[in-house]
């Protein structure tokens, strides 16, 4: 049915991302931004909305926000305004959320990434700073609800894209690319499952060639990349079905249910709250000085897309390889160190992509302490370059290095794995084999070329697989004829 849909319509998608900043303290209070110690343990008078408590803006959060704005090429505003967004809910202790409304701190900008090996650029509308709400816990069995305010006032960046995304897969690619930028900046953990990186999707359908957008529906409660794709596809098909059935699309917010693989309506536009925005009188307008901006600029690391382009150019990688190798800052550095140490980019790239990455399930957590580290891996791969190890032997050594955290040299010595490069030993072995298998020898000489492999095998077997393969091949060729 998706094919049918796509014949007539294009899917128009815009994403609203909420990224929690990993500051030490909260956005508006000095309470710790860390809630591992049980409910309501990381709270202060401010994030619990006590009478008389006033917000004080966390300067560090502002610095991170600026970095994000600059990294995404936004126009970072010299002056922006915090506003109060009002609604009543137990997890919102002040009865309003401090956010930015008409004057956000960053406008424009874009996320750039490779999608199906092509470079894509999705423009941004805006980024603004705001504080997170707490969490309600409903204990249905006991019939009570509890409020945990640890998350209250944790700093968030809301990053809003233009409706320029055109497929569920592209949406996921955009989201991954955005997350990568935040991780390169080291300002957000970027974990959808844990909720420190959240995504709402606005989805509508538009006839090919039409200018006007269709009625959009907002999807919430998406907690994985896979669910993002599924939810968008489900929604596009739902809208398609409705249009085909001559029903109109209702502007509404729908909640994605990952267990049932479907969305349910949460509220329509008419039911949407009037947030009664007003400028936050407890905070003066946020004025960013030239120095703050230039300091943030100088802190920016090489960004993922720049790194990928450099890897393509400098290390002759494909877009795909560059993407894989730049999937984390640590991995990219790892690759570069090995590649430069070997001066063989293919060997470094191939070995890392097939062997190293197979050992890692979480790049963010495991890469930093991964062993073999770049130095140890370079030493191992040097053994291939010098002809001391075959690729197969190197893989074996790598496995042991990984398992036992030992250096390549130690393993090679203790297992006696060193490759045999001595021509005399190999020649003796070849002559021995020729004596042992006269029939095969005569068959080979009368034209059965396949038997060359048989002699290779026999020689490696008697040399326990340690003969330098190319040397053995050369000596066999010289003697069998």
């Amino acid at each position, binding site marked *: 049915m998706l094919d049918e849909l796509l014949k007539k319509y294009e899917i128009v998608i815009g994403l609203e991302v909420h990224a929690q900043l990993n500051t030490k303290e909260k956005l508006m209070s000095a309470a710790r931004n860390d809630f591992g110690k049980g409910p309501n343990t990381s709270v202060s*008078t401010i994030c*619990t*909305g*006590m*009478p*008389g*408590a*006033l*917000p*004080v*803006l966390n300067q560090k959060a502002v610095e991170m926000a600026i970095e994000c704005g600059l990294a995404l090429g936004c126009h970072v505003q010299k002056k922006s305004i915090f506003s*109060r967004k*009002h609604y*009543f809910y*137990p997890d919102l*202790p*002040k*009865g*309003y959320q401090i956010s930015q409304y008409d004057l956000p701190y960053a406008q424009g900008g874009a996320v750039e990434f490779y999608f199906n090996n092509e470079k894509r650029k999705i423009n941004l509308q805006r980024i603004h700073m705001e504080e997170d709400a707490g969490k309600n816990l409903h204990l249905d069995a006991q019939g009570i*609800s509890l*409020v945990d305010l640890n998350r209250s006032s944790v700093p968030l960046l809301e990053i809003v894209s233009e409706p320029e995304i055109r497929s569920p897969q592209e949406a996921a690619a955009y989201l991954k690319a955005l997350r990568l930028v935040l991780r390169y900046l080291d300002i957000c953990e970027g974990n959808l499952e844990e909720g420190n990186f959240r995504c709402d999707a606005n989805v509508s359908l538009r006839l090919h060639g039409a200018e006007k957008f269709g009625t959009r529906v907002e999807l919430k409660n998406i907690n994985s990349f896979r669910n993002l794709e599924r939810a968008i596809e489900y929604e596009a098909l739902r809208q398609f079905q409705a249009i085909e059935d001559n029903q109109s699309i209702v502007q509404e917010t729908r909640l994605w249910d990952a267990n049932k693989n479907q969305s349910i309506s949460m509220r329509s536009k008419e039911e949407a709250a*009037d947030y*009664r*925005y*007003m400028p936050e*009188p*407890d*905070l*003066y307008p946020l004025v960013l000085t030239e120095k703050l901006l230039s300091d943030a600029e100088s802190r920016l690391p090489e960004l993922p897309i720049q790194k990928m382009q450099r890897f393509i150019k400098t290390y002759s990688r494909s877009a795909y390889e560059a993407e894989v190798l730049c999937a984390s800052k640590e991995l990219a550095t790892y690759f570069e160190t090995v590649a430069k140490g070997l001066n063989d980019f293919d060997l470094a790239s191939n070995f890392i992509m097939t062997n190293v990455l197979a050992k890692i399930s979480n790049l963010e957590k495991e890469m930093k302490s991964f062993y073999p580290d770049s130095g140890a891996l370079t030493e191992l791969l040097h053994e291939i370059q010098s002809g001391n190890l075959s690729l197969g032997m190197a893989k074996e050594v790598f496995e042991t290095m990984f398992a036992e955290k030992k250096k390549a040299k130690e393993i090679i010595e203790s297992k006696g794995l060193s490759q045999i490069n001595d021509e005399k030993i190999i020649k003796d072995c070849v002559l021995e084999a020729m004596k042992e298998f006269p029939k095969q020898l005569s068959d080979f000489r009368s034209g059965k070329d396949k038997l060359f492999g048989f002699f290779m095998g026999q020689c490696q077997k008697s040399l326990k697989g340690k003969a330098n393969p190319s040397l053995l091949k050369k000596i066999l060729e010289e003697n069998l004829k």
Partner: protein
Amino acid sequence: MGRLAKIQKALSEKKISLKEFYQDFIPQIKNRNSKTNAYIEIFEDELDAQKNRSDEYRGNLDGLPIGIKDIISIRNRNLTAASKILTGYRAVRSATVVERLAHVGASFCGRLNCDEFAMGSSNENSAYGPVRNPFHLEHTAGGSSGGSAAAVAAEMCLGSLGTDTGGSIRLPAAFCGITGLKPTYGRVSRSGVIAFASSLDQVGPMADDSLDCAILLQAIAGRDSRDATSLNIPTEDYVAATQKRILKGLKIGLPKEYFNMKGLDPEIEKQTQESIENLKKAGAEIREISLPHTPYGIAAYYLIATAEAASNLARYDGIRYGKRAEEFDSLKDLMIKTRSEGFGAEVKRRIMLGSFSLSAGYYDAYYAKAQFVRSKIQREFLEAFKSVDLIFSPASPSLAFKIGERTNDPLSMYLMDIFTVSVNLAGLPAIAFPIGLSQSGLPIGAQFIGRPFSESQLLSAVASYEEGFPSKRGALQC
């Protein structure tokens, strides 16, 4: 010299001990409170502790009883904002101003009555009953800091803190014949002070005279990292400022819009004119000035203040602290019932006004327009201060009126703030001080308005006036 400075002097010179002071003071505060209702709670434990102190007076405010408006947090004490909605709430930390007073030794003798959430001009909107004017118990003490003013006037403390959002220090000061200073917005920290209208609220001292106010202001003024709107502008020696005599040659402006006003009480008008003559006698240069947007001040004020109030009071929802409705059948019901039962009529009126003016579709017509007027008023004042040093005006259009006389007419009550609200809109400092008595013995007050951060100059001006033209003090009825 006010009682605060006098007692300090007597204690320093060992003419009296703290013990002796408290022996007289404790029965006085209790007796007079039963008549005035100035305090919601008197801290008897604290009074006893001071009376039984074995050590000696250590200077400054050490051991001296200061009353705190019950909208300002004192750690581990109840805090009600004179509202039922905060029933049972204890402050988890002290307001910065309270910490700063404590730092120089002040003893807090109780929580002072006020209008609920500081919303009112007569202290009749308190869940704990109205405060009675010490000079005429049938009359109001003014509001919203009515308890703070009455307690000073009736000698139930040596000084107090009030808050002023649209005149809430100056109006009760005028009604009770005391001196009250509303500092420049940003001069004093609001941290720990229950917010009414955040962009207008300011804590200030209320005391017998300029010197006593200066002593208190000295303790509380200055930048506080817990209040982002408190400004990093150095404080001055306010006590020394009260030694300066500055009226000679001082250019004082009289806004014609303030004096051409209908409804100004004739006795106040007469007394104000007399004060102007006094100022001239002292060598001041009196000039008429114009503040043409004055008539819009009240409207702009009530739009901005109610909008901010509606927002600030959203947190009182019955979820985390204070009152919670006993019976409810849903979350929404819990919040609606809690707020309906917990807030008084005036507070509800202002929440509704404020919510309305912030609503989608009305924001530009009301709130945004009011902010526009506010900026006009601000500029107008700054323009006026190019040609004058201070502005002089009555502090209130009427004398302390009878309790209950105006409660059915909220609009006439709002007009009580006509001379005071513009000052808050412009963020300026102003000081109200007594200039005389009515025939019936009720105090009459006037105010000086100054440039931003001119508190020293205001105190000097009032000190000069006090010395030259001391005001008669009425007879206490309590």
